[in-house]
């Protein structure tokens, strides 16, 4: 019986299209990636339906983490001299006696989460050691000693004549009294407009906002 000869097929597959797609995806991610700025603590922001973009410059960001610690940071990429103005103001208003080198170090410090008493220690460290340092957060809950007030006042002075945004980035698990204390520190500085940092949520179907958007945003 004549045996049927099966044609031998090569096991080599042409990988070119596969590689093409892989590199396409690679280039997409490379271009779309924006590296996270360093943060002292991990924050999970709650969601909201607002789609307004976050201002990235000329802003004060107050961070409240999941264990209700408060951090103060200034976003000013363009004009680094604001950092100097703020720390000098805080130094003189609280008479902390910081050295010039410590004040210069404030530029590299992303967020301050210590009471005034520990500020000298924090600024004496380099950025790496600051990250590992266990910080207690800025005291806010005692209304007689709401130290955030002084930080906001210093920032307000440094940014005088410019628009300054107040961002509040709170962790979903943080408690309301801390948030209220943060608001009261801002209120005492006569600032009444804030931006709460949130993640984008979908608008619920057929809610009034949904109907409004459908009607007016065509």
């Amino acid at each position, binding site marked *: 019986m004549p045996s049927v000869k099966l044609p031998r097929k090569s096991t080599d597959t042409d990988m070119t299209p596969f590689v093409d797609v*892989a590199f396409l995806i690679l280039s997409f991610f490379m271009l779309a990636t*924006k590296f996270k700025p360093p943060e002292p603590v991990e924050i999970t922001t*709650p*969601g909201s339906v607002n*789609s307004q973009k976050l201002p990235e410059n000329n802003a004060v960001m107050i961070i*409240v983490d999941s264990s209700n610690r408060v951090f103060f940071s200034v976003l000013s990429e363009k004009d680094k001299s604001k950092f100097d103005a703020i720390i000098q103001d805080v130094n003189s208003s609280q008479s902390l006696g910081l050295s010039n080198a410590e004040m210069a170090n404030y530029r590299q410090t992303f967020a301050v989460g210590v009471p005034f008493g520990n500020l000298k220690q924090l600024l004496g460290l380099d950025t790496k050691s600051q990250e590992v340092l266990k910080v207690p957060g800025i005291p806010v809950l005692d209304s007689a000693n709401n130290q955030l007030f002084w930080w906001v006042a210093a920032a307000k002075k440094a940014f005088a004549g410019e628009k300054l945004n107040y961002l509040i980035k709170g962790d979903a698990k943080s408690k309301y*009294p801390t948030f209220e204390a943060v608001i009261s520190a801002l209120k005492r500085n006569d600032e009444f407009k804030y931006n709460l940092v*949130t993640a984008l949520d979908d608008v619920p179907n057929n*809610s009034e906002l949904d109907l*409004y958007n459908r009607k007016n945003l065509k």
Partner: protein
Amino acid sequence: MSSIDTGGGDSVHKKGPGVKKAKKLSTRVDMTPMVDLGFLLITFFIFTTTMTTPTTLDLNMPKDIKDLKDQTEAKESGVLSIMLGKADQVYYYEGKLVVDATGNNFKSTTFKGIRDMIIKKKKEVMSRHVHDETCAKTQERAKAKGDPDWEKACDDRDFIVIIKPAADATYKNTVDILDEMTINQVRTYAMVKILPDEVALIKKTEETAGIK
């Protein structure tokens, strides 16, 4: 036409004796290392990328008013007070808090239920709305702001939501309830300090319901 000599035309080019045929090298390149590296980079970028761009929710707070007569008065029938308690519980009452022997108008619900309550209350208040001369001003202001629904701007003017988060409420609850205001297009709302009576009622309700 010119073409690349692939060296395949042996029949045309007769080589003389002693002319060694050059060894044909394959033009194929092993792409495996390149692909390996490619995928390594893809994984790296996927992990480091942050796709969710943060957004912001505007919050405007009023100035603290010391003098009682400077306060804005609200129509009692159009007010819905919402309190936030622990364990994502929501408490509310309409109008004034009434506590007497027959019970009270203090009710508890969840975040799911509060939306229906807001919608119901808003409809109810809007159905009672009567047009008067002050409405024209409100409509004009809305029109100047570019509100496409300016004609309706006055209809819900009596509807006011008062938000009172208790000490046990989380920040997420606060943002969620503010978000609920946007979702249901509540024009007038305020966030104020919770009253001791309300705290006591929340505590009592939590004890009976066994909420920890």
